[in-house]
């Protein structure tokens, strides 16, 4: 049985750009899929297709058991959309925004009002309920946006970069909210550029690049593909790089990578904490002064680099203008939106 979100062979081209080049997805009910990739990878285009905002050139999409292309309006009743592209009206108060959305979900004015009140309480916005959304902080605005997506308790949620532009504290808070939601059985598709975010929230992760899914699996599976643990040492002075390297070569299972300007040495190892203790002792014996040392497991950043040959951040900047398909204009609009969100 296909999952709550199912896509097969989605293709969408914009001029010469293949924004989606055969995307397949299958998200089991009640789970979170993290769609991970740099700007321009096709994350947003995928979400736009699945939320009925964009017609694909070919492919199949089923959300909550309903064919997206054949019955878009039925799908709209069963989904909530939140994130960078679904906004709230900044001149309306929080309450007015939620009431309007409720009514447009076809609730009666009375039900919509009641529901708005409940959501404002639930998202800790009750005090600001009757202030225009313009006056909200970035974090409050995101919470209102999320509340708007939850007006009808949709079985399937889409969040497009929900925490982009938020400070760490607000991000943490939003993560808690999202985790609560999912524990209630909602199926969620989440796009993000933050590898940490996918690591934190998603049961399964799809890495997308150039309109294709290039890897999928749990966070642990993806990390295992990248290889095991490493020891990282930062020495106090540049002259000590060379003796430190000799020490690490003795313990490591491979070559030592050196970043001269940060005085950081990295070597793949097996043996965990016990080995780390030995490394520290040996460095001490040789008189190498260290600023930092640690045993590192691979992060999703490492996964991304090993899969695509480039870091997510750099790619994001290079492709900023090519933007999923919305053309330079879209990218500009998005940038200014991000700025205004700050």
């Amino acid at each position, binding site marked *: 049985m296909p999952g709550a979100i199912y896509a097969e062979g989605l293709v969408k081209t914009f001029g010469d750009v293949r924004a989606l080049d055969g995307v397949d997805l299958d998200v089991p009910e009640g789970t979170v899929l993290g769609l991970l990739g740099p700007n321009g990878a096709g994350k947003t285009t995928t979400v736009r297709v699945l939320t009925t905002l964009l017609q694909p050139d070919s492919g199949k999409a089923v959300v909550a058991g309903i064919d997206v292309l054949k019955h878009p309006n039925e799908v709209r009743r069963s989904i909530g959309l939140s994130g960078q592209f679904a906004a709230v009206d900044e001149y309306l108060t929080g309450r007015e925004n939620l009431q*309007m959305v409720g009514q447009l979900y076809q609730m009666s004015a009375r039900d919509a009002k009641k529901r708005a009140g409940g959501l404002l309480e639930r998202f800790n916005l009750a005090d600001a309920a009757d202030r225009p959304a313009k006056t909200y902080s970035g974090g409050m605005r995101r919470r209102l946006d999320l509340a708007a997506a939850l007006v009808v308790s949709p079985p399937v949620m889409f969040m497009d970069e929900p925490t982009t532009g938020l400070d760490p504290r607000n991000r943490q808070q939003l993560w808690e909210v999202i985790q609560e939601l999912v524990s209630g059985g909602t199926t969620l598709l989440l796009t993000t550029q933050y590898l940490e975010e996918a690591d934190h929230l998603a049961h399964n992760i799809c890495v997308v690049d150039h309109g294709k899914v290039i890897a999928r699996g749990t966070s642990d599976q993806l990390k295992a593909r990248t290889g095991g643990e490493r020891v990282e040492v930062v020495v106090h002075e540049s002259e000590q790089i060379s003796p430190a390297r000799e020490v690490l070569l003795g313990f490591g299972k491979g070559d030592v990578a050196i970043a001269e300007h940060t005085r950081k040495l990295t070597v793949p190892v097996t043996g965990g904490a016990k080995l780390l203790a030995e490394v520290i002792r040996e460095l001490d014996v040789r008189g190498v002064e260290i600023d930092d040392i640690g045993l590192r497991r691979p992060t999703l950043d490492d996964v991304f680099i090993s899969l695509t040959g480039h870091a997510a951040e750099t790619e994001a900047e290079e492709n900023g203008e090519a933007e999923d398909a919305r053309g330079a204009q879209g990218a500009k609009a998005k940038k200014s939106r991000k700025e205004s969100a700050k």
Partner: protein
Amino acid sequence: MSATTAPTDAVQVTAPRPRGGIVQSVNDSLVVAKRNLIRMTRIPEMIIFGMIQPVMFVVLFSYVFGGSMQIGSSTDPIVYREFLMAGIFAQTVTFATAGAGAGIADDMHKGLIDRFRSLPMARGAVLTGRTLADLVQTALTVVVLTIVALLVGWRIHEGLPKALAGFALLLLLGYAFSWIGALIGLSVRTPEAATSGGLIWLFPVTFISNAFVDSSNMPGWLQPIAEWNPFSATVQACRELFGNPGVSPSDAWPMEHSVLASILWSVLIIVVFRTLAVRKYRSATA
């Protein structure tokens, strides 16, 4: 800001089945119209600037040009002021175009159109709601402008019912033009472009007409354009219904049947531009 409380959703709400059809369309449009009207009250400077502009036109035209204009055989500034008002009224209602265009472009820009398009609402409601809200604003502006017009000496001479019919034609024209604005708003890339794009073409449309001068004084090749201009039909109809001077004696069909021509033009504009705008809305991607 305190920590977010556990947002466990005790209440499960499912979206009611859409009623569909005309009832839903009307309801959704009214919800959106209400939203736009609330917005307008929160940005009162928009309404105020919208009112200052036509008042400024009245004053400028009446007192700067008034003394140099010949209407029929009269060069009396009072006659010109009475002549002018139908033109200013009509020009004012067409300026709703720019408001609708800028508003919709702004909604696209901010991502609100995406929000609306992801909701199970009637397809045309976002645009209909916007144009209805603009109609309310236009009506308000017309009321203020009427008071100013009375102050500078404009009068109605054919009784209130006919005058009200004239105002109805004006609002119909304004409503029709706001659909052109809606299409412009959906087609341009930024709200700024919608504002200027919504305005520039209005200048030739409102000036190559009978609004500010007697079109029989125009060069021969320009006269038919002015007479068949949809805008001119409404101006002519208003002059007739208000009993103001300067009704064109031209035998061009829209001038001879100005009320009918005004209605036909406005309905035609609504049908064509509503169709185009709703189609554009459905595929809006930015």
